[in-house]
Each structure stands twice: as C-alpha cells, then as structure tokens.
C-alpha cells in the first residue's frame, strides 16, 4: 500500500580508516515514522547527513521517489532537517526563522505570512513570534526548529536526536507532539536517536545500527520480542542471557537447553535447532515471575531458587537483582495491585523465580562469540 519513498543502496562511508557505514541497504516507506537507532558511533547520524546532503557516500546510491539524489546538494533536496541543537538563527526572530526557507525560495510576501502563521499555530507559539531564539525555552526552540523545517513542505523531515537536550518530562511531551505533527502533516519522518524508549514510542519501524552495519529492521514489537541477535536483544531493553547447548528436543516445539550450573531449561523452539547446537537464551526481566513460595509444578515452567541482592523501587514497578545459582538475574515486577497485607520482598530474602518456556527467546551462539570478542 505504502510505496517505497527512499531507497538506500549499498551505502558505504569511511572517515579516515574507520568505516562509518558499511554497505547499508534498506528502504523507507512513504509517510512512515522511521527511526534509526543505535549507540553513538553506529553511523546513524552519518546516514542522516548523507540523506540531508551534508555528506557524500563513498559508494552506493540514494533513491528518492525513483530519482537518484546521491549527487544533489543539500539546498536542492526536498528534505529538511531538525538539528540536534536546533541551529536556530540567533539574529532572527522566531517569525523570521520560520520564514527563512520561504524567503530563500522568493515566495510572495502574503504567502509567507500565511504559511508562517499556520506553522506558528501548529506549534502553538503565536505569542512568541517576535522573540529571539535566545529568549525562549529549549522545548520551544525545538518546536520552532520543527516549524522552520515543515514550512517548506518537505517530502521528508529528518530529526537528529531532537530530544537529547530536553529534560525527561518535556521529552515525553515532545514525543507526543511529534506524533501529533506527524499525523497532521503526513510526510515521512526519519528520527535518529540512541534512546530505544523514544524510538519504540513513536516509530512505525526501527532500524538498529551498530558499527556502520544494519543489525535489524522491524516494528518496535518485532525488534523487542524477536531480536535478530544478542546485540539487538541487549540494546533494546534489558535482558538476561544464558549460554546453553541444545540437550534434547522433547517435543517439536520445545527445546531443552543445558546451561552451566542450572538444571535444564525448557525453551520455545522457533529456530529448528538440532541437538548439540550452541545457543544464547534471552529472558526479559519483566517476563520472570517472583515470589517467596515455590511455584506450582508446571512442565512448561522453568523455576529456580535465588537470593535478592538489589531492590530498586520505581513506583509503578520494582527492579530486582537476584543471585540465582551464582548468576545475576534481573527481574522486573509491575505493581498492578497494591498488596498492603503482603510483606514486600527485601534485600537478602530467599525467593523463587520462574518463567514460562514461551517467554525465553533463543539466539544462535556464533553471534554471541562475535559480540564477546569486542
């Protein structure tokens, strides 16, 4: 339904000796809210700068709506950017900042006036129109930067870590604003961030990058629940890893893993593994149950005794760090109901943890070794 709007074809970019982008290919659909996610130095900003036209790829092509734009300079591309530090023009008022692109394009004065006022309304800043950027808050600067980009009716809006300089509450509000603006203008948004929470909250799809290589592309649910490898599993959210070897396959759907020091762990088998395959099991902290008493027998449950070593109370949920058979296990317990009569679990308490076999996710071990070599 959504045609492909941007296609990256084998993009490679080197800075001196190190490869910032290594043969990256993927496409973004029209109207999508697309996130480029990765730790610093993964190449996400370089990719954005190549798309904006500030950098040239060493090899590869960028296709926008069927046209090759690889050699088009930044000022000729129908793409606008919201910069990380906003980059508002300090000598111009908010009004003039927003009008900048229209003035460059020599649009008639009355059209400029209408467009700027429409944008001021969209970002709800009509009253600040005649202030200078130095006299408004960070969140307001952010909105002006978005308006200044959108007023030119770009086909694509690039957002380079636009929320990095804002505090948490404002960040959450701006995320909602971004989502609202995206719905209203309906163009493609490409959002660069190192914060997986931001990416998950607003994106239609996420591309996870590491060291200039694409690790996975998918919806937030896909990258969280079915990561391609340990890097994605570890980068997006917290997780517990177990290195194991397939011991037996008792039923078609389940695998029994042998993990050092542990009794065999049962796990859902979606990878068609064979006996003897080395795997990496990932179990998310919120999928592990925790209680003082041992759980009821269930053939599909994996249960282990442990000792609480860390308790971090977060209001709506609590993070526990446990020592389970000599290994540190993270557990997150959500407080869906108040248990006033139940004594809370404390430090040094002896507890039981268990999880359903379906809640473990297996990754092939070869990737683990690669990751641990870093």
């Amino acid at each position, binding site marked *: 339904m959504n045609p492909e709007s941007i296609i990256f074809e084998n993009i490679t970019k080197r800075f001196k000796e190190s490869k910032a982008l290594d043969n990256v290919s993927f496409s973004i659909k029209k109207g999508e809210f697309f996130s480029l996610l990765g730790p610093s130095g993964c190449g996400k900003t370089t990719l954005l700068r190549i798309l*904006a*036209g*500030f950098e040239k790829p060493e090899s590869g092509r960028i296709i926008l709506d069927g046209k090759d734009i690889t050699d088009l*300079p*930044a*000022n*000729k591309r129908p*793409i*606008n*950017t919201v*910069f990380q*530090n906003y*980059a*508002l*023009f*300090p*000598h*111009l008022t908010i009004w*003039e900042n927003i009008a*900048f*692109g229209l003035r*460059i*394009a020599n649009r008639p004065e009355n059209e400029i006036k209408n467009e700027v006022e429409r944008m001021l309304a969209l970002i709800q800043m009509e009253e600040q129109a005649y202030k200078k950027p130095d006299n408004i808050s960070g969140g307001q600067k952010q909105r002006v930067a978005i308006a*200044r*980009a959108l007023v*030119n009716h770009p086909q694509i809006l690039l957002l380079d870590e636009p929320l990095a300089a804002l505090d948490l509450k404002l960040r959450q509000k701006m995320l909602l604003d971004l989502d609202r603006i995206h719905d209203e203008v309906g163009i493609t948004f490409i959002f660069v961030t190192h914060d997986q929470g931001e990416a998950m909250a607003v994106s239609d799809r996420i591309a996870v990058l590491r060291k200039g290589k694409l690790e996975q592309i998918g919806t937030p649910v896909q990258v969280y629940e079915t990561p391609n490898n340990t890097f994605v599993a570890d980068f997006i959210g917290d997780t517990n890893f177990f290195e194991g070897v397939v011991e037996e396959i008792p039923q078609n759907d389940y695998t029994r893993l042998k993990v050092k020091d542990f009794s065999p762990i049962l796990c859902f088998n979606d990878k068609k593994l064979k006996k003897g395959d080395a795997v990496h099991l990932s179990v998310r902290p919120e999928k592990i149950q925790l209680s003082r008493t041992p759980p009821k027998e269930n053939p599909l449950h994996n249960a282990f005794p442990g000792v609480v070593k860390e308790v971090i109370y977060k209001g709506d949920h609590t993070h526990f760090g446990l020592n389970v058979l000599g290994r540190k296990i993270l557990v997150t317990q959500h407080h869906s109901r108040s248990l006033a009569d139940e004594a809370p679990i404390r430090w040094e308490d002896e507890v039981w943890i268990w999880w359903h076999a379906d809640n473990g996710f297996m990754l092939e071990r070869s990737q683990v070794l690669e990751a641990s070599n870093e």
Partner: protein
Amino acid sequence: MEKKHEWFVTLPSFVWLLLFFLIPTCIIFIYALKSQDIYGGIEPGWSLEAISNLFDKDYTLLIFRTLMISAITTAVCILLALPVGYQMAIAPKRFRKLLILMLMLPFWTSFLIRIFAWKALLHPEGFFNNLLAFLHIISPNTTLLYHLGAVLLVTIYTYLPFAIFPIYAAASKFNFQLFEAAMDLGASRSQAFLKVFLPGISKGISTGAMMVFISTTGAYIIPDLVGGFDSEMIGTRIAQKVFVERNLPEASALSILLALVVFLPLLAITMFSSRPKKLELELRNKE
C-alpha cells in the same frame, strides 16, 4: 553567552582605548583654550584664539580627504578581513595558531621601520616600480611613492590586523551548524554567508571597522613618509603644528576637530549596528 565571549575578546582593546585616550583628550581640551607663548609653550589664563584661528583657515578639503582615506581603508580592510577571518575560524586548530602568529609577526618590528620598508619597496628604483615597469603596467618614469595610492596601500597594510582580529574572534564563536541549517532550508553557499554568517559576526565587523577607521583618521606618519601633496591628512597638519610651528593650542584645537570628525561617524556606526531590527527592515524595503 556567545555574545558575551565576543565582547570579552574585544574588551582589552576598548579598555586600552578608553584609558590612554580619555586623559590625553582632557589635556588637549585644556590646551585648546590657552594661547601660545613665544617659546612654544602656553601662557597662563584662558583664550579662544586657537579656536577662532581654526575658522580662519579652510580645513574642509583636509577633513574630506582624511575621511575618504579612512573610509576606503576601512572598507578594504573589512573586505579583506572577512575571508581571512572566516578561513581562520574554519582552519584546523594547529594551522590556526600558525596563522595568528603570522598576523602578529609584523608587530615585532618597529612600525617606523615597516613604513621605511614600504618606502624602499615603492621607491622609483624599488621592487614594485621595477616589476610593474618590467611588466609594462606603468612607464618607468612613474613614481608610486608620494601619492594617495601609496598612502592607502600602507594604511591598509598597517591596520588590516585590527580588522582581522575582531572578525576572527567573532567568527571563531560562530556556530557553523547554522551554515548547514541555512543550506538545508534551500540557501546557496553565498546566501548562507550573507544571510547567516555576516549577521552572526556583525559585532566583530563593527568593532573591526571602528578600530581601523579611528586609527586611520589619526594617521600622520604614513602620509608624511609615503604621501605627497595630494594626500596630506589632518594628522600631518597637527604634527606640523606641534613639531614645526610649536603652536600647541592650535594643534590641540585641530585635534578636537579631528576628534569630532571621528566621533560623529562612530556614533552613526554604533547606532547602526545596535539596531539590527532597523537594518533588517531597511534591507527588506530594498528587496
């Protein structure tokens, strides 16, 4: 914050100007209201003689020429300093230090010696004369020295660093991401330079312009040594009154005239640069 820094960088030169000009200026005002005694000193008591003498002679041409030379020098210095300051600001750090050192280097030599060096270069038997004659650009009989052109060349040479330093100081504080932002919004490189870079360093430009303008209006050694009849400036006349005629009150009165001549354009520049809104409006009206 950036603006504060910019001021901080140019502050020492302002303090210097205030401190070493304010007190001497007061002395000059007092001397202008005295009369000359026969030994070249001043007589006790007050007199308006020196000031009334000022109106007896016609200084219009001298003032006009001084302002013209200063204006041309300022304009050329700023035009040369803009690309230099810009390139210095975007140059790699190591290279930048070298450039600053190279700008400072001439200051380690006496000002007078540097002017004599120019005199040698522009001499009828000097390097430039021979070179230009050899290239058939001028006839061998032309003298480059003792003309307005020589004065302008040497004033520009002398005061160029005073334009480069404030512009470089402002440019090095300039956020070059704004360049990318302007180009992202469709501006060409030259549009970005004119609409974003120049307004961004306007403080540095006006400071540089003032420094060059003030210095040039007061120049007297340069027109005296490399200039001729067509390039006499007020400074030359004041020097003549002090050293030759030994008429301190008249020299002082003339100095006040020069001060006024400098002060009025200066006031205009300050007003002009402190009202960027007005400037913007004017520019828009022109568009």
